[in-house]
Structures are given as C-alpha cells and as structure tokens.
C-alpha cells in the first residue's frame, strides 16, 4: 500500500507525533510519500526510534529514498542569511519492501520488491499465502495474445475459490445489421465527396 501524506496532515502533528506516525505506518508494511520531508534532526530521531523497534522478524528498518537536502545548493541570499533549505518530498517505506536504486540531485529511482524477488521475512508467511497454480499440462500462452477460443484453461486455487470466467475477446467487434448498413452508407458518401 502506498499512502500520500499531505502537508496539512504533517503540519497538524508535533515532530514526535510525526515520527511515531511514520514508524507505525511503515511497520504495517505501508510506503509513505510525504509531501514535506523531515528535517535532519527529525530524520535522526526517526533512525533512533526505528533501531529501537527492529525485531528481526517483520521489521528490519526503513528505506528513505528522497531528495538530499544538501544536493540542492543554497542560494547566495539564503547562505548570507544562514537560512536552510526546506525539507523536500520524501518517501519512507519498510526496508525489506523498498529499495533505492539510484539517486542524484534530480532523480530518485526506487523499487518496490515483489513476491518474486522478495526474501520472505518468515517462512510461515510464505507458506500461508494463496497461490494460483497453472496446470502443468497446459501450453504456455504469451501475455500478448488472448487465450485461444474453445480451449479450456484449468486454473486451480488451493483455497477452493472458483476462478473468474475467461475474459472476452475484445478484438472482435460484433456489429448488428443496422450498424452494418450505417457503415455502408457512410463509406459510399465518402466516395461521392
């Protein structure tokens, strides 16, 4: 789940409440996009609280891909007045789900880890998930083509839920007789013009 947190919501909270909110949400597995990031002091407090809450089971820490405050140069005016750059937008997520790929002053690239490349936190969590298994006897069908008409695709789910009906073939547009007549009239008018 990805939650966008507005500046208003963040401003309504004290720094301690803000950090507590972030840690609690991230521990639930949510990725938060903060309209306004944390200050350096708040980030340090976030790290401190995160370290205290790491439990080696479901929570191993936070990943915070975001724009570096220092990367944006202070203007001459701000430097003269000793004004700091305001915190910029920030993403915070569970470290086992969110991975920063690349980061410079202008682009931050992060990846949400999926089940395919995710290392399970606990083995019992993986064993308990619902998995759709495709019959091994079925020929592999590429995603770019719709399933062939008339063939039955057998899908079984371990939890006994009936699979949804196969999708309609949207490439075939079925026209009734009146629509076919209208098309003929339109094409003959185009020829006359």
């Amino acid at each position, binding site marked *: 789940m990805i939650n966008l947190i507005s500046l208003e919501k963040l401003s309504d909270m004290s720094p301690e409440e803000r950090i507590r909110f972030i840690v609690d949400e991230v521990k639930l597995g949510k990725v938060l996009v903060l309209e306004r990031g944390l200050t350096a002091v708040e980030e340090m407090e976030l790290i401190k609280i995160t370290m205290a809450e790491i439990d*080696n089971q479901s929570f191993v820490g*936070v990943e915070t891909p975001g724009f570096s405050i220092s990367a944006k140069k*202070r203007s001459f005016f701000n430097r003269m007045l000793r004004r700091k750059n305001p915190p910029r937008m920030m993403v915070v997520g569970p470290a086992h789900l969110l991975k920063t790929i690349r*980061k410079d002053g202008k682009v931050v690239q992060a990846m949400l880890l999926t089940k395919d490349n995710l*290392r399970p936190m606990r083995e019992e969590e993986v064993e308990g998930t619902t998995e759709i298994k495709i019959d091994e006897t079925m020929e592999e069908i590429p995603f770019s083509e719709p399933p062939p008409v008339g063939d039955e695709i057998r899908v079984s789910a371990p939890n006994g839920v009936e699979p949804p009906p196969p999708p309609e073939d949207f490439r075939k547009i079925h026209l009734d007789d009146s629509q076919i007549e209208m098309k003929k009239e339109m094409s003959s008018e185009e020829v006359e013009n």
Partner: protein
Amino acid sequence: MGIFSALRRWLFRLFKKKSLKIGLYGAPNAGKTTLANRISMDWTKEAMGLTSPIPHETHEVIQKRVEISLGKKKITFDIFDTPGVATKVDFHNFVEEHGMDEAEGKRRAKEGTEGVIEAIEWLDKMDGILLIMDSTLDPFNQVNVTLLGNCKARSLPVIIVANKVDLEGAAPDKIKKGFDEDLMVAISALTGKNMKGLYKAMIKKFQ
C-alpha cells in the same frame, strides 16, 4: 540546541578546556575504526578497536585521548570511534553475506541497532565531528545527509573525510562537489595517505 552548543564552544575557548571531544561518524564500513586506529597509532602507538569487513563490528563508542602536534601547534583530542549509523539492520545480511548462523546473525543485528542508538545519543556530547564517507560509493545516502544536517543543526564544526582514496573507483571530487559548503579532506586511513592534511585541518577547524 545549536545556540547552547555554540555557547559551550565559546566558553571553552574562553576558559581553555583541556581536550576536545571529536566524534568519528559515518555509515557502516566507511572506515571509522580504521581511521581511529590510524590516529591512535600515529600519536600513541596503540590501536583503538577491531576492524572487519562485517558491518556493525564496532557496536559501542570507544574513546581515546591523543595529543596532535604540528610544528608549534598542539591540541589534545578525545577521539570517539562510534558505531556506524544505518536506517536498517537485517540479520539475514549477516547470515547470507558473512556466513553466520541465524542465532549469531540476530545477536549481531541487535548489537548493531543498540550501537546506532548509542552513536546518536553521543552526538550531543561532541565538540566536533569527523564525518567519514567512503569515496568509492555514492555519498548522497540518507545517513551522510542526515548526519551532516544534524551537525549543522547543533552548530558542530565538521570535517568531511573522503576515505578509501587508495581504492579503484574512488571519487573524492564527487564528495567535494556535492558538499562544497563544508571542509573536505581526502585520505586513505588504511595506507595513511594525506593524514598530515587531516591533522592540519583538525587543528585549524576544531581549535
């Protein structure tokens, strides 16, 4: 918080405190303990701590007093080697990448988290910071930026140390360009390259 720190340092200059507390901070494996050992060996002929490629090897703050003298200038520092600051500690890394069993991995992870908390709490007691960055890696990670921001928020004098310049792929210029408002010294704590430059900078910045 910044005002009190600045006032404390002014009072120190006025009443000439015996020694300055200088903290070595940075991400895990940046070379903090290697640098602490280098400084300690240069001036006391004794090492400070154990180094290892395993992150979070240093899991508590270690202190040593050294007197650095260059020419006529002489300053006494209490050097504090701190645990690496990180936003995540996963025991799986110790198991998969460093061949530990699960119990040992969990123990090291717990030590690592406690070490980070201790390092953060010691920041308030420092008079100056050496912020060590691995110059072979991207310096704009959240830990480096957060540590630097906290030094500025506390009005702590800081020297950015671009370490590991002996390694291929080292790019201290990238660190200098990215943090151009701050004093930066490029060294190799392992080989001792440009340590004199660092000592000069420490005497100038922290006095």
